[in-house]
């Protein structure tokens, strides 16, 4: 597994919002590549442009300057083969859990029967088999977010992007969700972009961590996580893990130090 193919290529990507108070430069001059099958986390202080960057990659926000290329094709808008998970589960309250999971199938006019099986399997994987016919209002926040994960995975997208998917959850549910996500990657690796405020979560899940910061915001630090997969459940207790978290914390606080590669 040496030279992996590039999934996403960002070249001098910038975003300037035009607001009533004048232009706001949210992201400036980001150049990087995300490799096929890598799970990449993005850390950084609030307001540093993480969501903006992800929205540009998803094609939901226009790119002011620069180019994003996905598997050789320039990104100009949303694509159906990208799974998206937001901070809120964003389920449709009148649909059952199962129908919410199958919502992308309906939108893209694919045969429901072919995906029914997969929907059952995904819900079983996140432990919601018994709740298939419940309404979202009958579920807890963590359960709803699990449904939204299933929805993002139903079409088996090669790229999954998540914007602080677990930040509204309590610590215990959050740990469970992290393990569930590790499990999903274990069974079916895909490219992942994951935004979080939690350093430990980023290190636990990722193959690579980016830190954004500065004004206007850039990628200030790019670290490879040297742990292989499958990752043992107790990896978060190991000294290497804690050392890595400590280093990252320093980079976030200093906000400018650039590390090329920690794993070598």
């Amino acid at each position, binding site marked *: 597994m040496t030279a992996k193919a590039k999934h996403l290529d960002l070249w001098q990507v910038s975003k300037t919002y035009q607001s009533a108070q004048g232009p706001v430069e949210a992201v400036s001059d980001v150049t990087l590549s995300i490799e096929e099958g890598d799970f990449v986390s993005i850390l950084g202080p609030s307001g540093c442009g993480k969501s903006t960057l992800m929205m540009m990659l998803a*094609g*939901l926000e226009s790119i002011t300057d620069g180019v994003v290329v996905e598997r050789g094709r320039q990104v100009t*808008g*949303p694509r159906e083969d990208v799974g998206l998970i*937001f901070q809120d589960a964003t389920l449709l*309250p*009148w649909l059952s859990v199962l129908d919410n999971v199958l919502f992308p199938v*309906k*939108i*893209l006019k694919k045969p429901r029967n072919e995906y029914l099986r997969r929907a059952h399997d995904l819900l079983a994987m996140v432990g919601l088999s018994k709740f298939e016919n419940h309404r979202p209002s009958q579920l807890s926040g963590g359960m709803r977010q699990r449904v939204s994960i299933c929805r993002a995975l139903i079409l088996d997208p090669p790229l999954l992007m998540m914007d602080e998917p677990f930040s509204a959850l309590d610590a215990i549910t959050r740990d469970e969700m992290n393990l569930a996500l590790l499990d999903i990657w274990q069974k079916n690796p895909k490219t992942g972009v994951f935004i979080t405020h939690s350093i430990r979560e980023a290190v636990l899940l990722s193959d690579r961590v980016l830190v954004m910061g500065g004004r206007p915001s850039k990628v200030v630090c790019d670290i490879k996580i040297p742990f292989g997969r499958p990752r043992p459940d107790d990896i978060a207790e190991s000294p290497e893990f804690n050392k890595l978290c400590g280093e990252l914390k320093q980079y976030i606080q200093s906000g400018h130090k650039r590390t090329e590669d920690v794993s070598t």
Partner: protein
Amino acid sequence: MPLMVVTVFLGGWEFTVHHMDIPRSLLPAPSYVYERMRTTFSPLMTNAWPTTLETMVSFLIATVGGVVLALALTSSTLMNASFYPIVVFFQLIPKIALAPLFVVWMGIGSTTRIEFAAFMAFFPVVISTMAGLRATPGDALRLCQGLTATPWQVFFLVRLPYAVPYIFSGMKIAITLAMIGVIVAEFISAERGLGYLIVFASSQADTALILAAILILCAIGLVLYGLVALGEWLAMRRYC
């Protein structure tokens, strides 16, 4: 409790009329109104039917038209900027004053009454549906956008269901206004319907018949409102 109040009220009314010898043309006793209702039951019914039908048709036109216009107005900023103030203007003016104009322009037929009633009922539907269509959470819209949903899909699968409670609150106002519209148009066009019957009875000083007609109007109004409320209940179970 309300039943008791009504009984006492009717009893008091009956008693006062008999006791004080009030002439029938001024205030007939409830028992006589009932009597009059029984003897003129068939003309009451033949006139109740067009009123009910015209109310329902104009209500349907107002609802469908209102939802469609609301969709058009929320779909583009230009449309919204040009037409929304006009909608609010019509919502605020006393539209009932325009009834004679409708008759002058469009004659005294059933179509005129339906058009006028639909005109009365239309604006609350537009305004509440617009509020509903704007109430879709931004996240849900972003989800659809990310799935490359077409505008029609977004409208029918997401925005319309989110707007259901708003649309029904508009419809509940619309059904009452549609009925008022039909009755007023019947007053003026004087062709048929319970409104016409009321005008006719008042020219004969037949107060008992007026009251009988009003009673039937109340019953129709309550049933129609009840149907809309039932529809709302069903839709809310389905969509909320």
